[in-house]
């Protein structure tokens, strides 16, 4: 059985594994991720002289200034497409509030003391909404910063405020991203596979998304 596992993987969904993300969801996720990282690298370069070397790795300051807003638009669009796909799974529920109250058990890996969560747990939902509203704030402030020549002289004092809003929104999303990448890569083994290949094990689903597991276990996705 174990020896035939690779052959099975190549031809279809692995036995005893559950489809976590559809190909469309995964593509949207990685487009969002790639565009975000580009904007983060270039944006940090503009943010402080100590990180200005970052713009050199993507073609220099002027190139980065040209592409940053365009790629940023791509990030917002990909983010909206993700929202379109996931919105029914992202509403906060009463269990989520209880989960938030007991978040310290999540931090200390005592997950059995937490209320059972659906497809996304409350932490993932909060990260999602931070990125969603962050993207809207970054878009609106970013458009002003994209074309400062369109601001009349008497309104130029507004620009530093807009820049500070843009930077604050960026820093909050970077904070979210640090936790998101850390959780996905280090704390919850199997998550990277879920977002690349698309499948998780039964154990993964039972531990991290028990309500979702019960739902999909009765449905078609489990083989």
């Amino acid at each position: 059985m174990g020896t035939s596992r690779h052959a099975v993987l190549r031809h279809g969904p692995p036995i005893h594994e559950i489809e976590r993300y559809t190909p469309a969801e995964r593509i949207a996720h990685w487009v969002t991720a790639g565009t975000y990282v580009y904007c983060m690298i270039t944006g940090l370069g503009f943010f402080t002289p100590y990180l200005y070397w970052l713009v050199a790795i993507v073609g220099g300051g002027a190139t980065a200034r040209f592409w940053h807003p365009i790629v940023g638009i791509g990030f917002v669009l990909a983010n909206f497409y993700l929202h379109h796909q996931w919105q029914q799974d992202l509403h906060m529920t009463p269990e989520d509030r209880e989960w938030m109250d007991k978040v310290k058990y999540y931090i200390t890996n005592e997950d059995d003391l937490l209320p059972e969560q659906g497809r996304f747990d409350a932490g993932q939902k909060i990260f999602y909404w931070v990125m969603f509203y962050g993207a809207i704030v970054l878009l609106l402030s970013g458009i002003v910063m994209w074309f400062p020549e369109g601001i009349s002289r008497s309104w130029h004092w507004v620009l530093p405020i807009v820049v500070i809003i843009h930077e604050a929104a960026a820093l909050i999303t970077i904070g979210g991203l640090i936790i998101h990448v850390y959780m996905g890569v280090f704390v919850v083994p199997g998550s990277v596979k879920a977002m690349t290949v698309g499948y998780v094990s039964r154990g993964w689903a039972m531990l991290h998304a028990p309500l979702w597991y019960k739902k999909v276990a009765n449905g078609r996705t489990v083989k």
Partner: protein
Amino acid sequence: MAGGTLQIKNISGHAGPVAGANTSRDYGVCKLIDTTTCIGCKACEVACVEWNGYPFRQTTFDNTYQTMSNTEWNYWNLIRFNEHENEDGTFQWLMRKDQCMHCEDPGCLKACPADGAIVQYSNGIVDFQQEHCIGCQYCVTGCPFDIPRFNPETKKVFKCTLCSDRVNAGLEPACVKSCPTGCLHFGSKEDMKDLAEKRATQLREYSSYKDAGVYDPEGVGGTHVIYVLHDAKNPEKYGGLPSNPRIPILVQLWKGPAKWLGGLAMAFGVIGVAIHYLRYGPKEAEMKEDNNHGNQ
């Protein structure tokens, strides 16, 4: 000015003190604009365009003698013609040569995020290095005099260089060379300040301009372009010369505390998750399953 770094300080095998050693020299340069002797001939505008190699252009008529309404990315120097009615009902032209003021504390330089795009020389000239400019136009926001101009085609920002190329070769700026009335002067900051004060005193004592004075605003640490004004108490009437220019406080906030607060927050975020991993480690799904539910 030019060659200043080669002044002799010590000489080997020399008897007695070195001539000229320990003297302090003022390397700061300055352009003095005496608005009271400007006749609005615009020779300086022509000289500026010619020296810097930009094309002559059609003028824009808006019911004044002014060449056009504002400076442009390739037109750095403009005489502003202000029609002023005195208290006694008489008419007066207030003509002001408008260009970069070369602040001692330049707001453009403070706001600029691009390494090396704006430099300030030890003689006080503030110069844009277009090859390093990224076109973000933060300098426009940082400038209290509304000087930097954006070229939408090349996405670079330009302004008066105080003819840094000429000054480096020991020459005066092109505008100063072209001035027929002698209302433009160029020299060390100390000398120009003395000359300006002398002229302002002369105006106060021997003319009706009792409020004549020198414009060298302290809010930006002084400037390397200074004016003698008939009415130093109301610089605004010279076509929007600010009476107390400063780097906008929001620019200072944005370029000061906002930077290190953000940097600290990011560093703590990364350190925080690293400590969490070392303390609590990953959530192992298969193990937990075994503990809670026994063998499958």
